[in-house]
């Protein structure tokens, strides 16, 4: 353990524990998932950074959205994200979740993912290299340290807005609201 971080460990042990055990949802969206197998296996070995894929979203706290998001995938992504326990961090991977990327004029691909669910950070590129995932992970550590990776809090706070946007593109959602109180509309 890094002795320089001892104070941080004593001040906020839960935060430090979350920081160094990022369990990623193994959710394959679009082409970016091609980069994930070499990242988590021996070649780049994401476990050095505490990132490990999990079998189910209920055990995960990191959601990598790897590529373009079609409407059908958006429905699955929202269900997956809502099942993850808090605190949870979501990272958009590649150009497409940022603004649609090369699918900017596609009738069936959403353009700005952060209008439907909160995103803590983006990795730009088409495709980003596996090293970019580690840069993103170290940035995420900094954000967690500074309490700026607060996507799950924003999701609670603006849930009514997020839900309205989701229903706007997907029509009726077949699951009840996650936070019935609603938050700020």
């Amino acid at each position, binding site marked *: 353990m890094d002795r320089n971080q001892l104070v941080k460990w004593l001040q906020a042990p839960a935060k430090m524990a979350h920081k160094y055990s990022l369990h990623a949802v193994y959710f394959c969206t679009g082409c970016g998932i091609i980069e994930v197998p070499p990242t988590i296996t021996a070649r780049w070995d994401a476990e050095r950074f505490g990132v490990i894929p999990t079998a189910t979203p209920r055990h995960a706290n990191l959601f990598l959205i790897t590529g373009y998001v079609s*409407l059908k995938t958006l429905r699955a992504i929202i269900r997956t994200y809502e099942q993850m326990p808090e605190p949870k961090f979501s990272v958009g991977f590649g150009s497409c979740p940022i603004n649609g990327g090369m699918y900017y004029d596609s009738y069936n691909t959403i353009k700005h993912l952060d*209008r439907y669910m909160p995103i803590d950070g983006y990795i730009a590129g088409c495709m980003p290299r596996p090293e970019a995932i580690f840069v993103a992970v170290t940035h995420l550590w900094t954000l967690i340290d500074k309490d700026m990776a607060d996507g799950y809090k924003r999701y609670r706070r603006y849930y009514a*807005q997020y839900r309205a*946007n989701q229903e706007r593109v997907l029509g009726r959602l077949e699951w009840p609201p996650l936070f019935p109180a609603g938050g700020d509309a």
Partner: protein
Amino acid sequence: MTHSLKARLDSVFKDIETEAGRDGRLTVIATAESVVPVLRFLKEAGHDYLQLVSCVDWIDRGEIEIVYVLSSYLRTGGEAEDDPAEIVLKTRLPRSAPSLPTSIHVFPAAEPYEREMHELYGVRFEGHPRLTPLFLEREYEIPPFRKDFDTRQYVKDLFGSVPPVGEKS
């Protein structure tokens, strides 16, 4: 001597046009009513592999063209003139109300293709047991793969109208 497949097709079906290509490909242009009999005839003649069913929107001619590509599992074909490697069966439908009898009782593999064409081009397949949504999540006024579907305007109207989330200023 057996007659070539082209000659047999021409003698059996009166309302089709056939054209033998140089690359071992036989093109058949059929009417909407004769598509299923021609498919059945070709299947019995040994061309039992439906490679794909495709759809082309000829907006200038006001036609939707359905293209069936057939080949054989066992024979590679192409060597002799009467043994085409691929058969391309085309039919043209009016663009305003395209409708065609289903061919899934001849080729069961046509089912997902027909569902896809129904969803993306608005072609109605009479007798298909389930023309339910396959890929799309939304209802579209114009089927989205037709040429007159303006994707940019659609994106602007739908996704451009979704507001950003956060503090309202």
